[in-house]
């Protein structure tokens, strides 16, 4: 498999601070990949090195198979959408879009046709004569996008393209961007620290933490088989538990839990979707393996309720359908934990509840 864009063993220091640490990943041609990680993890730095705005201290950067470490930014043919857009403030929307084409000495007629086409695509025709400061956040975002696309780049990089936009417009723009990019077939890489955004928009997710690549894969892979403790914790609404062997069905069983080495050997991660929550025995499929708990808090989530339930002194987060009888704070409830991610020895393993396996054995 050959990548259109590839970073290999990239290292980058700012003074003595290591902003990229042996980072390697690739994006296939036409793919829309998302670089996901907490604030300060080095996402922007990776993107800037790809674009040629920053030089790596070590490692290779390849675009379409060609080593570009020594190619200056302006010759890399990359479209870039900045975190805060960086529109040319003294130019109208139309002139912003035309700039890249003027640089290429494209003739005026072609420029007019191309900018018209892009204004149409981004729905900005009506504001073409305005200056950036006279636009809304969403409009600015689209200008930045159209401006990056104007010179027909091979690769498009977007740094938190939706960060400065309110929630509703953000949702609209997300699906719009996804479609636009797929229609154009441009290899794209976008940065975000919002996992919903990454999951919704990206074909491939690359998880960054402290300058290292933790995992790269499809959203489903990342979600279902996190390979490092960080990913398991970072993705989803995860709750960390110090000792998962205390829960029913995960009890002390050497064969299951490995040999318990190190301080965090019994640490585990439980996601809301791993927990089946029930008001009483009748509601639950496997009452034997269920834990008794007390509801500590509930949050309305629009389509469901999030419920914090205390089980064995540990607060767990679970979800409850609005169709079911609501739970109140202080209610007793049952929680069946289907599975847990164990973080033993820096590896994540999925551990299924023993009660489930036993019952399936019985059947």
């Amino acid at each position, binding site marked *: 498999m050959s990548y259109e864009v590839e970073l290999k063993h990239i290292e980058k220091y700012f003074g003595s601070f290591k902003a990229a640490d042996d980072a390697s990943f690739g994006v296939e041609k036409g793919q829309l990949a998302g670089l996901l990680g907490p604030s300060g993890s080095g996402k922007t730095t990776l993107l800037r090195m790809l674009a040629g705005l920053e030089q790596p201290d070590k490692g290779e950067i390849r675009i379409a198979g060609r080593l570009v470490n020594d190619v*200056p930014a*302006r010759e890399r043919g990359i*479209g870039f959408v900045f975190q805060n857009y*960086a529109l*040319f*403030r*003294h130019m109208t929307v139309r002139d912003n879009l035309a700039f890249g084409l003027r640089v290429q000495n494209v003739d005026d007629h072609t420029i007019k046709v191309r900018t018209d086409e892009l204004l149409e695509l981004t729905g900005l025709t009506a504001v073409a004569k305005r*200056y950036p400061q006279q636009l809304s956040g969403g409009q600015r975002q689209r200008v930045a996008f159209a*401006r990056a696309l104007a010179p027909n780049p091979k690769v498009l990089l977007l740094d938190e393209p939706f960060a400065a936009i309110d929630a509703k417009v953000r949702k609209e723009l997300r699906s719009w961007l996804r479609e636009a990019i797929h229609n154009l077939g441009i290899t794209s890489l976008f940065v975000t620290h919002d996992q919903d955004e990454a999951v919704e928009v990206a074909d491939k997710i690359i998880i960054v933490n402290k300058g290292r690549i933790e995992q790269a894969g499809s959203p489903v892979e990342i979600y279902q088989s996190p390979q490092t403790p960080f990913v398991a914790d970072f993705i989803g609404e995860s709750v960390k538990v110090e000792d998962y062997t205390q829960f029913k069905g995960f009890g002390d069983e050497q064969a299951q839990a490995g040999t318990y080495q190190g301080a965090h050997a019994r640490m585990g991660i439980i996601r809301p979707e791993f927990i089946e929550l029930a008001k009483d025995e009748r509601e639950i499929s496997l009452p034997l393996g269920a834990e008794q708990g007390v509801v500590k808090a509930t949050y309305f989530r629009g389509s469901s309720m999030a419920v914090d339930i205390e089980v064995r002194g540990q607060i767990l987060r679970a979800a409850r359908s609005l169709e079911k009888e609501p739970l109140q704070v202080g209610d007793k409830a049952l929680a069946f934990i289907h599975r847990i991610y164990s973080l033993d020895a820096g590896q994540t393993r999925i551990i299924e509840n023993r009660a489930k396996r036993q019952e399936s054995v019985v059947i």
Partner: protein
Amino acid sequence: MELVRKLASVKAREKLADGAWQETVVKWSLIFTGAAFLVSMMVLPLVLIGVEAMAKGWAAYVRAVSEPFAQKALWLTAEATILAVLSNTVFGLAAAWLLTKFDFKGKSLLGAIIDLPFAVSPVVAGLFFIMLFGRLSPFYDTLQAYQVAVVFAVPGIVLATIFVTLPFIARSIVPVMEAQGRQEEEAAALMGASGWRIFWQITLPNIKWGLLYGIILCSARAMGEFGAVSVVSGHIRGKTNTLPLHIEILYNEYNFTAAFAVASILVILAVVVLILRNLVEWNLTRAERTGEHEL
């Protein structure tokens, strides 16, 4: 009971009125002090210059102003000012560009060096040029051999003026450039633009009001410069006298009318500069507010 409450409320109101009255007194006495200070320190001298200049009538004024030495001094001042503005614009742009768009070792040192002329007395600056190019200079013989006169000649005056006004332009554009960051330039570079194009089409339009502001401050200072120029000039009438030096000479010769008449030229120039400065300043804040750079 009722009565007590009424009394209390009246007292409270009186107190309030008392407070408001005090406030008014403070306000007006501050305004008066400020105005009196301005009038005695700024307006009065300016008016007196006008009155003195016209003391012997309009004809005497015109004669004093159009007299050849005065004209020569005016042109020399103009020459020094224009050259200082030109060279400091180039230097200021380069320095501000370096300071804001690049990271390098010795960056803060460069910043400090730019401010040096603000810290050094102009007279010291003048002496510095005498040391560098005068009789005591190691280059003196070479300069003599090529018949280049720097000290007590026009080049010295221009150099001294450039030195004294060096920080103005750089210091006016650095904050503007800093506030705007590098991203617009980076965006342009990613689209393939050359450094030259980026400068003319992205950077310059973004900083034009700041630059103009710096140019105006620089010209004002260049026209009025006395100390440094006085040291290097040699006071040769009709050759190395700028307007401020010419005024001093006239004054020392007890030729008050002529001195004030010539001084009035500087005053008029200063007022013009002040008006321009305010126009540009107004535009600068407006541009910052709206981000629009249209006049």
